[in-house]
């Protein structure tokens, strides 16, 4: 089959790989109909997440049709259209019983590796380095989904464009707003207007936030935040100092809730940029936390900072004094997608949310390297790229691109 693979730092390859096989009794094989490139795929390709191996198949946002199931699969059958949540859950351990699916205790065969890095292991994730198990990803024609009874959400009747994001970014964004306990009357500030940021804005709006302030530096993304996602205000941080602007906009209080939808490869205009960029380049810190620092400093005393941007390891100059002295709460987590997929599916079916507004580019899987170039470099107004293995018009020859 054809798939997208990691080919070394900043290199993405499209070409032939072996087909997946059923390895465990609960597995299903999915024929991918649509996949997406996620911001966290860029962290992997950029080389900031350890334990990537050349040849790893990328992609953890995908959906498709069930073409084969193992002997233990009961709830889904060949022919079902399903979205696959990115964290692989076993459904049997204590964490799964608490709906903490992304920290499932059983699905990461490289638990020892994750344990060294994170203290305790996390769940397996498709196409997301060997720290999360070394599972092949979904930017491919076929994928094996383990414990398919727990890890496949049936989406019959919903077009791919509306259903696809149930596998990661819509639940991630929703959980971000939920962790922030967004409620009517709140002023919510959201750092990052990428796909997750846009959907976090939409989620905060659905939860009744009174004002939603979106922060980014790309005009087209800020426009999307205002015009399509539901932000009431936007800040281009290249034009205005964010802390001052937020204080001005909130009568000096600061936003009640701050959501970091940026993560480990943040950008900044001030002295933090050369400082963190240099430390990260020589591997003295793994993550650049400029957005997180700013969110903490901005948040009103007693407020909540919700972190859904992806972090990989260790951050530097973390303003713990502000957290402690101003009674802030920090909440975070890789999304427990299985907890949110069904209720959000119902909201989409009811017409309350349509996450498809973030899609700016649709292309055949064979053009995936172009997709990475556009998304990473924010070219051509790119917010979200979706890939269609079956779509015609692409050049199906193997290719490699430096992105």
């Amino acid at each position: 089959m054809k798939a997208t693979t990691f080919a070394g730092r900043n290199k993405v390859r499209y070409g032939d790989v072996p087909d997946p096989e059923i390895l465990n009794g609960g597995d299903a094989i999915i024929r991918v109909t649509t996949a997406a490139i996620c911001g966290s795929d860029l962290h992997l390709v950029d080389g900031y997440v350890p334990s990537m191996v050349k040849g790893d198949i990328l992609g953890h946002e995908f959906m498709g049709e069930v073409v084969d199931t193992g002997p233990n699969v009961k709830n889904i059958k060949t022919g079902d259209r399903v979205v696959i949540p990115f964290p692989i859950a076993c459904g049997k351990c204590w964490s799964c019983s608490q709906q903490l699916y992304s920290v499932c205790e059983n699905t990461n065969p490289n638990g020892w590796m994750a344990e060294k890095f994170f203290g305790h292991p996390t769940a397996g994730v498709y196409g997301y380095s060997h720290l999360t198990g070394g599972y092949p990803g979904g930017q491919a024609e076929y994928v094996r989904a383990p414990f398919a009874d727990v890890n496949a959400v049936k989406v019959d009747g919903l077009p791919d464009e509306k259903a696809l994001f149930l596998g990661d970014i819509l639940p991630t964004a929703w959980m971000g707003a939920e962790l922030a306990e967004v409620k009517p009357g709140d002023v919510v500030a959201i750092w990052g207007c990428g796909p997750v940021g846009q959907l976090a804005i939409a989620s905060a709006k659905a939860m009744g936030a009174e004002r939603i302030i979106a922060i980014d530096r790309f005009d087209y993304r800020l426009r999307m935040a205002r015009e399509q996602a539901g932000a009431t205000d936007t800040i281009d941080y290249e034009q205005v100092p964010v802390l001052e602007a937020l204080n001005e906009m909130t009568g000096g209080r600061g936003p009640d809730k701050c959501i970091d939808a940026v993560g480990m490869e943040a950008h900044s205009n001030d002295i933090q940029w050369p400082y963190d960029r240099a430390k990260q380049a020589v591997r003295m810190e793994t993550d650049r936390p400029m957005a997180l620092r700013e969110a903490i400093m901005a948040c009103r005393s007693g407020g909540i900072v919700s972190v859904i941007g992806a972090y990989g390891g260790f951050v530097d100059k973390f303003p713990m004094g502000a957290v402690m002295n101003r009674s802030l709460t920090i909440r975070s987590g890789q999304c427990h997608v299985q907890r949110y997929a069904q209720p959000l599916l119902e909201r989409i079916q009811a017409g309350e949310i349509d996450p498809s507004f973030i899609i700016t580019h649709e292309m055949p899987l064979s053009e995936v390297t172009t997709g990475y170039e556009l998304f990473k470099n924010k070219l051509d107004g790119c917010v979200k790229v979706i890939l269609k293995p079956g779509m015609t018009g692409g050049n199906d020859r193997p290719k490699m691109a430096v992105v």
Partner: protein
Amino acid sequence: MAKAQGLATMFGAVSTGIGVWYVVAPEHFLRTIGARPIDRRIATARLVGAQEIGVGSALFVDGRTTPWLATRVAGDAVHGAMLAMAWRSPDIDRKRMSLAWGAWAMITAADAAATLLANRTERTGVSDDEPLGSSEGALAVADGNVHGSVTINAEPRAVYDYWRRLENLPRFMKHLERVDEFDGTRSHWVARAPLGTEVEWDAEITDDVPGERIAWSSTQGSQIWNAGEVTFQRAPGDRGTEVHVRLEYAPPGGPVGAAVARLLGEEPKGQIKGDLRRLKQVIETGEVIVSEAVAGGRSRRQRPARPLGQAA
């Protein structure tokens, strides 16, 4: 602790030996460091010798190593000052005394390093004879045996029953080839060893409390001596069963064999953790979970996450 104790004994011996030399043959010592043996210097050398013997004996006798090692560092400073004073005298052999300076620098560095190490070890509060601050469960990680624990979302009796059928062990213990039970207590074990070899031994169950504890030991005449115990405790808050395993074994080839095995990636502590993780998978989900990157292979050697078959 054992490491610091060993160091202390070694330094104690060296200190005492040097001290005896200074006291018994001060002229020889002074000539060695390039200083002419005059009366004043002979007296000083004897005094320094007495001090060395004192510290040396203290390191042997007293259980606490840090303060005495620190005394050695202080002594080194005094000796350095003495050498500096002697250096200014016209009657010294500068070549020999340069060598003495070198020796002094090395001894001082060794003393300082040993003091730091002993200090760190002693401050952890883990001691061979009495537990200072840690309770028994916490001390289990410091007793030198291989240990591991995992919490399994199942009743203690169910986990015990699974383990007690020894034929099940190779399902989650990666290095076990097979276990055959002869009768209620005796069994034969075959394990894979480094470099494609196999080791076998007979074992017998020495304690068996259904739902709580199993202990075993290899029988006399086994290829490798080993013993172990596993306990099954109800976890707080209805979270299933805490499984605690402790293994003692004499690795084939002794410490050298163990070091070689580690080089080959056979690290017992890592092994037991992996084994317990697989036990949890088997009991909770019914099978050992594999990803394409680790399927059929050693989990510690990475290979691309792609399907079996062509994965090299």
